[in-house]
């Protein structure tokens, strides 16, 4: 915790970190102070007045917690009649011009205004004069839809565009109760992180056109995930739900705070990548162009492997360390080569200096640490020697421009083991459907050498199998990546101290990174 101070909250002594404001300091101790405008990523603004607290013997006696540092001996009062009244009053002011259209509001169920009203007010409305009318359903661009009437003018969205993206598309125009968030005419949101505004908005004023009216918040199961959209490995929530008689599908991703990896935000591209977990999935097993049962598909692959003299296994830079390991093992079993060729995942110039990496793979460090060769020359050489190719979900679509590789591949007996329907798999003799990352668990290592563990979120009605299980069905010995971990750990010295179950929530920074260090 570092340096601490002892203070009193409602006469109870609490020890908290020094140097933090009361909202953050007390939150760690499990004490919530209601607030709208304060956000740890955006700082204290002090406009909403919802976090007013009483300081006994303080001058002034009522202060905004967001602007008040925790100090030794301070006597904070949150439960006095005065503070309860203040909280009630602030909510009344927020609500007098609010449409209270919760039944048709996407935010209902996860709305701070609604939650605080339930927790701190429950008073009847005394407003019997006409409300202030403002504009609704404004298209702010980047899929952000704004409702000025629901807005509490906390300014988080404005501060986000000024402090975080430094694009400044939003402003609060007018003053007094005519104040409202707006864009300059013809200058809508235009940045790669705009949808964080929807997460940041404490009420239903900023909604996502992608999510609008799709699902009620209370039906969603919120699981923790790690984005596989690029080498950053941003943390997010996978919000999914199994409709009655339907399948478990994902409705959205939301940013999940991880100060070691992505801070408080994720990029829009990653956020929208949930669609690819639902859609364009390979579900059919195909042998020789015909749809067959999964078991028959596996049988066909086993036969091919048994006949092959020199199979080549292609690994995806998106697979987990455990999956990569399982493929390596099975390659050894069948005397095959392994390639992690995936240059196409790297899209030059597509990254930025914030969260977006130009390498669109989640675990290239895993390939490197396992010493799986990624270079093109090696691929061409092994591909030339191979009489059978097994591609474990490496999205060659990314490398489609590589005509030479595509041509060589089309001449081979080619087995595609894939989670998605991809054009580059058209020439495959066998196609085996597998799970995607929302449907399995494992560990990946981002380009900053932070190893992160993630868990299975989605449970499909017909759960596809993940690569580890496939390798087992193909004759491999690994039944579970965690059981294989001792072997992995012995192989990769950097992981020697890493125990999957003990990887902390925010991941673990691997030290002494450098050259591939396979010892096996």
């Amino acid at each position, binding site marked *: 915790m570092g340096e601490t101070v002892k203070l009193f909250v409602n006469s109870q002594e609490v020890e908290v970190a020094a140097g933090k404001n009361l909202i953050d300091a007390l939150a760690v101790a499990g004490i919530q102070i209601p607030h709208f405008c304060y956000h740890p990523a955006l700082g204290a603004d002090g*406009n909403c*007045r919802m976090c007013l607290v009483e300081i006994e013997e303080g001058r002034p006696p009522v202060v905004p917690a967001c602007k008040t540092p925790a100090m030794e001996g301070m006597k904070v009062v949150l439960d006095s009649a005065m503070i309860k009244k203040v909280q009630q*009053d602030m909510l009344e002011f927020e609500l007098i011009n609010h449409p209270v259209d919760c039944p048709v509001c996407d935010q209902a169920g996860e709305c701070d205004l609604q939650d605080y009203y339930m927790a701190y007010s429950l008073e009847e409305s005394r407003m019997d*004069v006409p409300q202030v009318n403002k504009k609704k359903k404004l298209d702010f661009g980047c899929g952000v839809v704004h409702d000025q009437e629901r807005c509490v003018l906390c300014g988080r969205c404005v501060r986000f565009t000024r402090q975080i993206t430094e694009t400044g598309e939003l402003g609060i125009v007018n003053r*007094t109760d005519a104040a409202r968030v707006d864009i300059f005419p013809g200058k809508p949101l235009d940045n790669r992180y705009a949808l964080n505004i929807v997460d940041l908005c404490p009420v239903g004023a900023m909604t996502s056109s992608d999510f609008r009216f799709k699902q009620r918040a209370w039906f969603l199961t919120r699981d923790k995930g790690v984005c596989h959209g690029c080498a950053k490995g941003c943390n997010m929530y996978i919000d999914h739900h199994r409709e009655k008689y339907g399948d478990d599908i994902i409705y959205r991703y939301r940013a999940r705070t991880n100060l070691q990896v992505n801070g408080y935000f994720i990029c829009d591209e990653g956020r929208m990548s949930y669609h690819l977990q639902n859609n364009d999935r390979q579900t059919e097993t195909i042998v020789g162009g015909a749809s067959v049962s999964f078991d028959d598909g596996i049988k066909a692959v086993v036969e091919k492997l048994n006949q092959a003299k020199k199979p080549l296994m292609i690994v995806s830079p998106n697979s987990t360390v455990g999956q990569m390991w399982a493929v390596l093992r099975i390659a050894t079993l069948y005397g095959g080569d392994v390639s992690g060729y995936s240059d196409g995942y790297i899209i030059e110039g597509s990254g930025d200096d914030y969260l977006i990496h130009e390498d669109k793979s989640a675990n290239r460090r895993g390939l490197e640490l396992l010493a799986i060769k990624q270079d093109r020359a090696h691929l061409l050489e092994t591909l030339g020697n191979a009489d059978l190719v097994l591609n474990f979900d490496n999205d060659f679509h990314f490398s489609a421009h590589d005509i030479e590789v595509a041509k060589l591949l089309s001449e081979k007996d080619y087995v595609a083991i894939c989670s998605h329907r991809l054009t580059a798999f058209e020439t495959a003799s066998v196609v085996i459907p597998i799970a995607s990352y929302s449907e399995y668990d494992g560990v990946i290592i981002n380009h900053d050498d932070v190893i992160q563990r993630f868990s299975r979120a989605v449970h499909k009605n017909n759960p596809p199998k993940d690569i580890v299980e496939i390798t087992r069905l193909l004759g491999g010995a690994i039944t579970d990546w965690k059981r294989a971990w001792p072997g992995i750990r012995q192989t990769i010295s950097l992981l020697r101290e890493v125990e999957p179950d003990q990887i902390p929530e925010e991941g673990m920074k691997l030290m002494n990174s450098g050259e591939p260090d396979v010892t096996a």
Partner: protein
Amino acid sequence: MEVKILSAKFDIEDSHRLEVAKKHGAYGTLEKLFAMDPADVIEEVKNSGLRGRGGAGFPAGVKWGFLPKDLDKPIYLAVNSDESEPATFKDRYILVRDPHMMIEGIIICCYAIGSHDSYIYIRGEYTSQLKILQEAIDEAYEAGYLGEQVAGHDFRLDVTVHRGAGAYVCGEETALLESIEGKKGQPRSKPPFPAVVGLYDCPTIINNVQSIASLPFIIEKGAEAYRAYGTEKSAGTHLFGISGHVEKPGMYELPLGLPLMEVLNEVAGGVWKGRQLKGVIPGGSSTPVLTPEEAHTVTLDYESMAEHKTMFGSGGIVVLDETVDIVKLVENLIAFYHHESCGQCTPCREGLGWMLKIIRKFIAGDGREDDIELLLELCDNIEMKTVCVLSAACTMPVRSYLEKFRHEFESYINSSNSDPVQSQAE
């Protein structure tokens, strides 16, 4: 009763021109000033008892003393010429009739606090006033009173006029700084105070025009001479603006401490048209109203006003005669503060509009007894819950009208006619 300290040159033709002003002593203190130690200048101002004439009444010299010592940052002086408090029009006289007195005051202040850059924030509505002020500054530059070497001394001073554009709240000192920085005039949370973190994050002193214009007299004649006017705790003179229902409205320079009614009757000619007095707003629209009884016991100084549970404010005195419809007056006041709310803090942004709509219910004949209670409660709910005191500037007077003239609100409820005062007059 009237005295001529600040207003000494006001009646002289073309007194705003340097040539004329100089003939009457303008910039005469500078030799003495530059021979003094800056710390002694501050001490002299402290001893004079000069209090901020913008409305808050904070001792000027003490304020200067809050500047951090030995900071490796520039220090700024911002002169508050936003003068937007209804009933306040005193600073305008200085800007127009003796701008060089103010410029001289700026030089004194900047020398004392070690500032080399001063901004005068003038309200946007003062158009011709801005022109005269700018001409005076230009003349001062030409004559060497401003610029690289003030009056030939090794002291640089630049003075820039920053024009507001219609926002009462910019008279609040941190909103004023925000406005100069190119932002909306939305007050900052304090602490930190501007003397520590002010304009462009640098230590900044903000003083009202009249406070600054009082400095030449204090330096020239000394603190004691200034204290000879006024009372022990309310030293000096003040430019009182008297308006509303009096025979002779206008600006009068008076020592502090005079009885209010004497001033109204003897200086301002008494209530106009031979009418009876209904009340007096003592120091600008945001000060609680005084009943005729209270008006007869109060004196024009900070202490007496406080004893009468109101404030000296800006010294803008408004007389209300017997015909004034208090409910409509309150509507006029709330409309003003609602219009001027910066929109930042929830209670002020949302609450003042609500109060305005409630008062309009009364005028429309739809007011209810519990609306009076609701208005009183809203005053409490809003007041002191905000970053700045704009909301209190509305709720404090409104509460005073509700408490002291409650019967007028009630008569709107009880009367079938929605306009009882008018019906009385007919």
